[in-house]
């Protein structure tokens, strides 16, 4: 996508801001080159659509308020296959409706970015109850990349990363936001445009008669892209398809396709999975957390250390695919790993399977529309650390 220097300058609001989390997402998207947005009203994601409707047309992009979330998610695939960098934003109830469309984007390898600002059963209380749905919502075999920002700055940074990952792997990427950070104002530093790394999908150099839309050069590779409407004659079907795109009922073809489509994500975990470790070097206890739950963990860590309990924090920037290597490494060094999450205890199962026979595990859950208080996390540490 070619943008002029002035357009790029308008796109990137370089400077220091005090900004709403939802707005930071928009600024991240624009900095990353987003040129198509479709959304349907839902709190607490509305500020994303509202700011997009103002900002996007001004930089030459297209904004659509569709008739429902199904329209948003399929319009994204349509625009993306036509060459756009496309994004939608919704909250839990709307994310429900998008599942089949996300599955379609996986099957046809359409790069799209979805922001889900998690909320609580129709109310805008804080929650991480959808952490499993983020990944497992669509039917069929698939991999999704899910990023979990913990602050307004990360909402900006991770949105850029989401576009870059979507483009690189031609896969849907989900930004797992939460009411807490989405509706919070914090300091946000936007770097100069030239310091922002932008990844674009690779376009094919083959002529239409040689081009195969689902052929990759490596076993777990990503096919080169040809936009719709230029005579490449690609078929983008949800149904089992051959490298040529044609519907194909051969079991070998089907197996091979999904081996590659899922493998291109799982085999590149080293590139995709990011974590941040805090005071893990000498830790006996690890707090494993993602999203806004990282914040109380940081305070609880200090409270525990003041009392002589060596606690560290492993912050999961990527929740899907699971950063397995990083969690195993922690499990090998600590005696106890506590997953802290704002739901009835879901992601802890992923942590438990990785820690099994390496260290003890426990979970601090909270499912009452509120983030953990540091004291609550510390209380759990004291209770299980004997």
């Amino acid at each position, binding site marked *: 996508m070619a943008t002029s220097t002035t357009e790029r300058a308008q796109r990137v609001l370089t400077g220091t801001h005090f900004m709403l989390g939802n707005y930071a997402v928009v600024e991240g998207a624009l900095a990353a080159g987003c*040129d*198509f947005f*479709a959304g349907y009203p839902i709190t607490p994601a509305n500020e994303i659509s509202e700011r997009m*409707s103002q900002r996007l*047309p*001004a930089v030459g992009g*297209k*904004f*659509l308020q*569709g*008739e*429902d979330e*199904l*329209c*948003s*998610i*399929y*319009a*994204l*695939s*349509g*625009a*993306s*296959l*036509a*060459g*756009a960098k*496309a994004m939608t934003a919704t909250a839990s109830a709307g994310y429900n409706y998008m599942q*089949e*469309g996300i599955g*379609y984007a996986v*099957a*046809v390898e359409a790069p799209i970015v979805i922001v889900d600002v998690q909320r609580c059963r129709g109310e805008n209380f804080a929650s991480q109850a959808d952490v499993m749905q983020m990944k497992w919502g669509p039917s069929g075999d698939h991999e999704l990349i899910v990023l979990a920002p913990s602050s307004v700055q990360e909402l900006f940074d991770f949105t850029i990363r989401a576009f870059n990952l979507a483009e690189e792997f031609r896969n849907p990427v989900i930004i797992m936001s939460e009411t807490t950070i989405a509706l919070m104002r914090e300091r946000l530093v936007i770097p100069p445009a030239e310091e922002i790394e932008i990844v674009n999908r690779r376009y094919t150099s083959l002529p239409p008669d040689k081009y195969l839309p689902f052929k990759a050069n490596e076993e777990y590779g990503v096919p080169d892209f040809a*936009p*719709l*409407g*230029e*005579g*490449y*004659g*690609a*078929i*983008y*079907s*949800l*149904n089992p398809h051959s490298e040529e*795109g*044609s*519907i194909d009922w051969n079991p070998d073809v089907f197996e091979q396709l999904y081996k590659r489509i899922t493998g291109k994500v799982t085999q590149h975990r080293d590139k995709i999975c990011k974590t941040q470790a805090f005071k893990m070097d000498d830790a006996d206890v690890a707090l494993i957390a993602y999203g806004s739950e990282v914040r109380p963990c940081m305070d609880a860590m200090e409270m525990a250390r003041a009392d002589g309990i060596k606690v560290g924090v492993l912050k999961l920037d990527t929740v899907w695919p699971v950063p397995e290597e990083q969690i195993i490494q922690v499990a090998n060094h600590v005696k106890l790993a506590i997953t802290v999450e704002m739901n009835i205890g879901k992601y802890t199962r992923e942590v438990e399977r990785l820690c099994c026979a390496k260290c003890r595990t426990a979970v601090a859950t909270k499912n009452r529309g509120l983030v953990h208080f540091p004291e609550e996390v510390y209380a759990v540490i004291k209770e299980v650390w004997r």
Partner: protein
Amino acid sequence: MSQPINPLRKYIREGKLPHFFCPGCGCGQILNAFLQACDELSVDPSRMVIIGGVGCTARIPVYLKGDVLHGVHGRTLAWATGIKLHKPQTKVVIFAGDGDVASIGGNHLIHAARRNLDVLVVVANNFNYAMTGGQVAPMTPSQVRTMTTPFGNPEPSFDICELVVTAGATYVAREATGRPVQLERTLKKALTHEGFALVEVLSQCPTNYGRYALRSGDPAVTLKWIMDRCITKAQADKLSKEEKAGKFVLGEFVDFKRPIFCGSSVYDLESCECCE
């Protein structure tokens, strides 16, 4: 002895024939009429984006050389909206069954018509959900027996043409596979229309509608059942509402121009008529 090659064969993907439609199905005729229309207009379908949802009708695009989207039920117009906004110059044609576009995709249909999205929607109305085995659909006539209305359809049926006219479509017509010349002429007009165009094609499904509703798998029986109920718009205009009951009115319902939808753009608020 070499067989003469159908001149429309050049628009069909290599190695994809024979198609998967049942013998006597109307989908083949619709495909044929569409390609004939393209050929006469000299518009190349391989430069188009051709969309099908799921269903028998939705398989029509996969035989064509253009770019194709396929495989999800009812979302054809949502895909098209994204494509047309990002790349307005792309010609987009949709092939949809009555279930796909009038039932599960009904919301997208009325809103695309309201917006006057620049697409052509060809609806094959075979009066049932064919691919799933002949269940009742929104356009199944009242009282008719299907696989899920063993005692007769208790619901009134949709008039999709009336629906989209009311919603704001700018070209709307109904034709039947039994009138190939008129069908092709209508598709030609619809293909050149700028804005939301919908052509409903009454189409025979001998395998499911024929066998269950009409108690015969003979394609001619279903075709005759359809044609016996067809009247032209000119004839219909002379009839009372009661006399028109149970008839399918063929012809053009609207053909006009209004601004087509291309998404929001930056414009001067003062030039907006609705803002004082």
